[in-house]
């Protein structure tokens, strides 16, 4: 009897993004609205961040609702139905359940059950991480079509009265379908992490602290009776995001410009080969400074969705890409360099053929 041999799936040569969708919630928060919560001005915020408005979801709209809206548009554009999806990947830091995942519920909502489904926790780099995963799944033959979604309701995890990060953030979702391709459509990712800067962008405190304070409050009969024994920031029960802005800015511009250059090199391209540059929409000044560092020619269209949408973490790159394609349909088929970077710290960059 011969030794049994396992059968492995034949590899595919290429994959690409086949369709893209977006969900922009309809509550518009202006800089004047923000100035009710922090001592600032419209001019100050525009000058330092380039943000004019951000979209936020109402109380009845969840991360999943937004993910579903974006996913269905991406699937329709790709001409793919739920039963064809071989995996569903959602990148989010604001799905309000540690478990179960947003991806499993989303898979069911888009008719993909029993497709494998999982969430990625890679903050603002999560969408690029998801594209790297989808590319690997499709080219390995593990999946035919993969749904990748970046969805965030950051308004649930901010404190509007603090001034390091909350005023930058918005809600929304962007989605794509990745599938087999006759031409190369997704380059090798340049991705990584730097956990030595773990606390540069982070929640104020852990869920363990929330549990301890909740238990103490329950025992004492009220939260106010125990809140002064709670040494976490602001003694607020609900953890919210904070960042060390200047440190993040320095890392985002000068370290990420190197990563963007490496991603171009990994794709075998020069800056002039690009049709578009879609950096994570963190801050207009980061975008401007990166464009300078990369010496992009004027022919490269730069995504600046942040002015209207704010920083939507994992959703920002697909949202910005969706908008670029709506405003410049001729970009379809062109090459876009995308780079995500954020809390972790983590980063990911690759070049894609625009759907």
């Amino acid at each position: 009897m011969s030794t049994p041999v396992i059968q492995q799936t034949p590899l595919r040569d290429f994959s690409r993004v086949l369709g893209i969708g977006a969900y922009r919630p309809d509550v518009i928060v202006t800089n004047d609205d923000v100035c009710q919560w922090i001592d600032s001005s419209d001019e100050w915020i525009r000058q330092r961040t380039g943000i004019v408005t951000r979209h936020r979801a109402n109380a009845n709209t969840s991360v999943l609702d937004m993910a579903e809206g974006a996913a269905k548009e991406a699937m329709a554009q790709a001409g793919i139905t739920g039963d064809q999806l071989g995996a569903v990947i959602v990148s989010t830091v604001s799905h309000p359940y540690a478990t179960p995942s947003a991806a499993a519920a989303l898979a069911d909502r888009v008719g993909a059950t029993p497709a494998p489904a999982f969430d990625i926790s890679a903050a603002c780099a999560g969408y690029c991480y998801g594209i790297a995963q989808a590319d690997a799944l499709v080219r390995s033959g593990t999946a035919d079509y993969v749904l990748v979604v970046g969805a965030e309701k950051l308004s649930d995890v901010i404190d509007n009265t603090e001034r390091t990060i909350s005023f930058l953030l918005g809600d929304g979702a962007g989605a794509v379908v990745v599938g087999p391709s006759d031409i190369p459509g997704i380059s090798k990712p340049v991705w990584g992490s730097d956990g030595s800067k773990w606390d540069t962008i982070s929640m104020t405190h852990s869920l363990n602290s929330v549990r301890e304070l909740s238990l103490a409050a329950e025992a004492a009969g009220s939260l106010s009776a125990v809140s002064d024994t709670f040494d976490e920031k602001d003694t607020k029960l609900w953890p919210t995001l904070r960042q060390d802005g200047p440190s993040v800015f320095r890392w985002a511009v000068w370290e990420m410009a190197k990563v963007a250059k490496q991603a171009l090199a990994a794709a075998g391209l020069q800056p002039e080969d690009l049709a578009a540059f879609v950096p994570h929409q963190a801050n207009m000044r980061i975008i401007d400074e990166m464009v300078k560092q990369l010496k992009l020619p004027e022919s490269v269209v730069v995504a600046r969705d942040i002015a209207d949408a704010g920083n939507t973490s994992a959703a920002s790159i697909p949202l910005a890409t969706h908008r670029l394609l709506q405003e410049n349909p001729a970009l379809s088929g062109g090459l876009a360099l995308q780079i995500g970077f954020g809390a972790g710290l983590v980063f990911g960059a690759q070049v894609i053929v625009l759907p």
Partner: protein
Amino acid sequence: MASNEEILAGLAEIVNEETGLAPEAVEMDKSFTDDLDIDSISMMTIVVNAEEKFGVRIPDEEVKNLKTVGDAVNFIVNAQA
């Protein structure tokens, strides 16, 4: 190695490039935030450009201590020594 005057002049050039401020406004006793109205993000750009120009390393945690132009000049002089 550059003298204090050369570093001040180089720094003034960098500040001018980032903010448009006249180089002669960049004096040793001027505070970056209070006198020159330079925000924390512009300050980081100035710091990175100064690192490149003067061949020194200015860590993030050190930037907070550079309140005046003189603080920055002195830091760079010591870092070059």
